[in-house]
């Protein structure tokens, strides 16, 4: 086929995506059997088509000789396939739209991966973040309200949420600016004390100062849109990113205190936030009113039990906002505890693998970009799965890669592209280390030092 002439360097990804396609086809067959009684119905085709997007992404990446990580896109494909099956089951009328979002998103993912891997994204983070902040300002002025949050912009009937894209800009801007900190450099010897940046040192650096201001502006604008869930995701991810870059624990403690104060204020001034906190602290007090959604999620979870009721046998549509915010609980009824632990495991492996890749990153900028992207995925997945499970107050955010929604799907996949692009060379470096003899180890270390120095210079250049 296409690959015959090329030397395929992405064997792992090919096998993993193949397995995911097989599973997607099986869930499609199960859905099709439950609904139309035939093995090969529309449901089978659509589920398979959703997973095929990632096979195409694999072919494109291989053709572009992209040598980044091979596990990430397969895990994302698994999350997307499971989510797509649930949406197909819940709202067949949305299935074709969601399929197109997946295909567009996968295209964006490939483009973002190549863009980031070639280093072209370097230095653009600040501009993106400033643009995102401006877009949020426009949304605040002219946007429309959905579910208590004024975070939607409609252009020609198509709505999207700029805050979804602000998340990516925040991670990129953070990676650009914070990689200039000396604390990011690798310690010359493993035994040496790690570098830490004090708050003063951080504030003294102009790019860091600038990124703090932009982060603050974006979080504040998102809060003003009353999209507290997204604001919390950006805030926590950025604080974690700043901690990784600086190693400053006071920053974390201070940010936690500030965050708690912010949540307190939000509860006081935004009635829907206060109501959600009340619904979280005692969901059974007002099961028919403010906590209706959470309680319906509990019933769905309990009705699913260990093995689930099987596709087509449950009633997941009983939960309000099932295809978007409540997708986890809605699908848990039919796939059971076994399936929902599987979903948690997919996100666990995805984020865990992303952090592992970040540790092997080529340069501090790449490392921080990977950490920033992983942070956002981790916090968002935790916030919404936790919200579905009653661990956290329910917020109106989506389950990345799985929930219905164009902005969410495309921005999550773009973020995944940034993540993929930031893992370039980490595998080939590992290969080199494995294949190299003991004598060649010194050369590898030299290369690392060199890249550190280069990045430091580049970061300094950004500052000027």
């Amino acid at each position, binding site marked *: 086929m296409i690959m015959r002439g090329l030397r395929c360097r992405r064997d792992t990804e090919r096998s993993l995506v193949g397995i995911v396609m097989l599973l997607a086809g099986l869930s499609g067959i199960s859905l099709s059997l*439950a609904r139309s009684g035939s093995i090969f119905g529309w449901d089978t085709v659509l589920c398979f088509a959703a997973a095929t997007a990632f096979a195409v992404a694999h072919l494109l990446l291989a053709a572009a000789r992209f040598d980044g990580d091979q596990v990430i896109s397969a895990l994302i494909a698994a999350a997307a396939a499971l989510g797509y099956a649930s949406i197909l089951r819940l709202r067949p009328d949305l299935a074709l739209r969601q399929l197109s979002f997946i295909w567009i998103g996968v295209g964006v993912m490939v483009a973002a991966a190549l863009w980031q891997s070639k280093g072209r994204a370097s230095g653009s983070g600040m501009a993106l973040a400033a643009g995102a902040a401006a877009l949020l300002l426009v949304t605040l002025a002219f946007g429309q309200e959905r579910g208590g949050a004024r975070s939607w912009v409609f252009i020609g009937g198509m709505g999207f949420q700029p805050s979804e894209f602000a998340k990516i800009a925040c991670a990129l801007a953070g990676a650009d600016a914070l990689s200039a900190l000396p604390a990011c450099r690798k310690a010359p010897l493993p035994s040496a004390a790690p570098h830490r940046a004090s708050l003063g040192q951080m504030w003294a650096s102009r790019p860091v100062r600038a990124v703090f201001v932009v982060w603050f502006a974006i979080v504040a604008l998102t809060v003003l849109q009353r999209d507290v869930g997204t604001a919390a995701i950006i805030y926590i991810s950025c604080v974690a990113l700043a901690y990784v870059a600086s190693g400053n624990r006071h920053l974390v403690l201070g940010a936690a205190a500030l965050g708690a104060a912010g949540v307190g204020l939000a509860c006081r001034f935004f009635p829907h936030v206060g109501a959600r906190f009340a619904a979280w602290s005692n969901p059974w007090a007002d099961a028919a009113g403010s906590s209706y959604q959470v309680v319906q999620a509990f019933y769905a979870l*309990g009705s699913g039990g260990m093995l689930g009721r099987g596709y087509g046998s449950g009633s997941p549509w009983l939960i309000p906002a099932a295809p978007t915010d409540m997708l986890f609980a809605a699908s848990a009824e039919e796939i059971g505890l076994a399936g929902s632990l599987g979903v948690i495991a997919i996100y666990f492996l995805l984020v865990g693998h992303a952090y592992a890749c970040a540790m092997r990153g080529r340069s501090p900028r790449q490392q921080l970009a990977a950490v920033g992207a992983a942070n956002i995925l981790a916090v968002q997945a935790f916030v919404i799965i936790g919200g579905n499970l009653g661990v956290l107050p329910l917020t109106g955010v989506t389950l990345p890669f799985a929930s219905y929604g164009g902005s969410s799907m495309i921005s999550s996949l773009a973020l995944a592209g940034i993540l993929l692009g930031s893992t370039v060379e980490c595998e080939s470096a590992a290969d080199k280390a494995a294949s190299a003899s003991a004598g060649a180890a010194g050369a590898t270390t030299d290369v690392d030092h060199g890249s550190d120095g280069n990045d430091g210079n580049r970061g300094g250049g950004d500052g000027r």
Partner: protein
Amino acid sequence: MNHRISRLLGAWMVGCAVLALAATYYQAAMADRLAASPANPRIANAEKSIWRGSILDRNGEILAESLERGLDSRVYRGPGSLAPLIGYAHPTLGKSGLESAMDQWLSGRGWSYSRTGLLSTMSRQPDRGYSVRLTIDSRVQRACEAALAGRRGAAVAVDAASGEVLAAASCPWVHPALSESAWDTVIAREDSPLICRPLVGLYPPGSTIKPAIAGAAIDMGLAGSGTVYDCRGSIRAGGTIISDAAGAHGSIDLRAAIALSCNTTFVHLALKAGPGLPEALSGFYLGGALPLDAPTAAGMLSSEAGDDALGQLAIGQGDLVVTPLHVAMIAAAVVNHGVMMRPRLVAEIRSADGAVVTRSSPGVLCVPMSADAARIVAAGMRDAVEWGTARAANLPEYAVGGKTGTAENPHGAPHAWFVGYAQHAGRKVVLAIIIENGGSGGQAAAPLAGGIFRAVLSGR
């Protein structure tokens, strides 16, 4: 920087562990409770597609059945006096009585709320509920209904040897179809036609408590077949004087005291028994609810052991209130050698294809008195029917024993009670009847027993 990334990785692991634990909590630990919760909308939705099972009497006569899927077509076919026990099943009013208590079975959820994963896609869930066969005998039930003859009251008949409840008549009643169409009117009625009086109606037992007092006194060594008490016609219990309407009985043994319902003797025994008496009576389950497949009310038995309280306890007045079933079960223990069998209402559960899923079997509930005591008390109750206060219950063809009661109450005329047993060819049936505000037990309640005993023992 890598060690800081590994800290984030650690935090992420903790976060995922929390999520996995929470998922396990709701989907494993709490799953059954959430799935079966009446507020779970899946239950109501499932009911629409289930053909609800029937309720049958012990001979297979249909008491309640559904004509099609869903709750709308539920039809009640049993005797009217059984309607408060069977209850109703209605899409908006909900369910009551046995329709509610046995709902898991009737709606087909009893065996397991199907959660078999992808397998359930292949195997269709059952669309017919289980049918419930009761121990109730419609013939006996109709005899009870005829005996009550429209008066407010209750009658309950139990097979003493097996614990099977043969009839539980409650009067007045409304047909479930009527209570659904005229709910507000039914609810507003002052004579509470929806209450299942034999199982949840609480009344002072009056003198029908005396067989239990006698049994307890014999087992405490305070009285026996040879002991004689000199009845002077009245006795002081604390601050009150309790007297006998018939005047002084003179020298009287325990059998005669039961037969003549001598208040003075029983107050004397209660005062001698002291704090041990409430304890002994709680052995008859008078202080709690009898276990049954339908809801039963808990009796109220104060453990107070002052002379005033003991005096009132001895004649079944004061704070003591019990259900007709409690009273019947006392007689059941008396006639069954002191052994109280577990009362049973459901005989078996059958699946839609007729296979028996569960079948109830006799079991001992408690042994509130010794066999010797039971023999003496049974003889006293026999005397009561032969020449004592309960003569109106006598039947030539069976060995009938009984005890009447005339229970003072704050709602007007005294409640008329009769509790008794009839033995024939190895069968032992007990019966408790109450006519609310019916006056004298010997005149209003005891004459009703004969027809019911005949219905049970003659098999006609």
